[in-house]
């Protein structure tokens, strides 16, 4: 099995006592400690303004390689915005429900259930072209027959 770890450190001087939170987890398949996520899709793409795009498609079209295979599993998604203009951002949505704005220099790391065909991770740039790095860790899918 593949062993992939995700670690985070949060540091801040917001409070009188300094904040220093660390966590690390091994990315496992759903409900097990014996088998790690062993598939990854990893890329960089420029998101232009104007349209909403499916960055990660839960099931589109129905013949998609990931159609249903990842549904309700322990998929993990990493997205980083490499824009350098602080006013630039992309809006992240899941099934048309707003999650948040990922500003220049920000990153996010979330579990993604891809619970149904509409549960796409959608991305929109409204401020300019944003270069987006993304990775999807999952436990497998089947390819379309050619």
């Amino acid at each position, binding site marked *: 099995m593949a062993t992939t770890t995700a670690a985070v450190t949060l540091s801040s001087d917001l409070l009188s006592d300094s*904040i220093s939170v660390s966590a690390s*987890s091994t990315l496992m398949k759903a409900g097990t400690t014996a088998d790690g996520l062993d598939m990854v899709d990893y890329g960089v793409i420029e998101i232009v303004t104007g349209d909403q795009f499916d960055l990660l498609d839960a099931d589109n079209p129905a013949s998609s390689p990931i159609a249903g295979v990842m549904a309700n599993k322990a998929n993990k998604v990493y997205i*980083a915005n490499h824009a350098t203009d602080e006013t630039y951002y992309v809006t992240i949505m899941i099934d048309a429900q*707003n999650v948040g704005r990922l500003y220049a220099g920000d990153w*996010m790391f979330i579990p993604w259930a891809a619970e149904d065909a509409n549960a796409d991770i959608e991305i929109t740039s409204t401020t300019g072209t944003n270069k987006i790095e993304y990775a999807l860790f999952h436990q497998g899918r089947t390819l379309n027959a050619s």
Partner: protein
Amino acid sequence: MATTTATITLSSTDLLSDELALTSTATLTTAGASTGLVGTSGLGRKKLASGHAQYVLFDGDAYANGAHKVYLKNTSTTAAEYFTIEINSEQMGKLYAGDWCLFPWEANADTNDIKIDPSADDMVLEYMLFIDE
């Protein structure tokens, strides 16, 4: 100005033929500016009451639109136990035992609540909200 940073490291020596060693650091700032976030809920823990009831962790009505950031961690050590995370009643994903997540939250509508739903009784969630005031 407060300075808050979030650093992620994704690493694996056997997922790919080449080693995966990704590190990214973000300084958490207000929307569209370089000013650091000045509000936080602090680090908290909640033990969810039995009954598997869905629980509103952060209420969209209580925060203005902004570049808030949410940190969650499932402290369970039982592999099959997870929290289902929802935003505005749409499922984001399942946070399994030991897993954590960090994501932006815009709180762009009164209904844009962050809800959690434990899969078992007496699960403990660790959480922190960084607030764009």
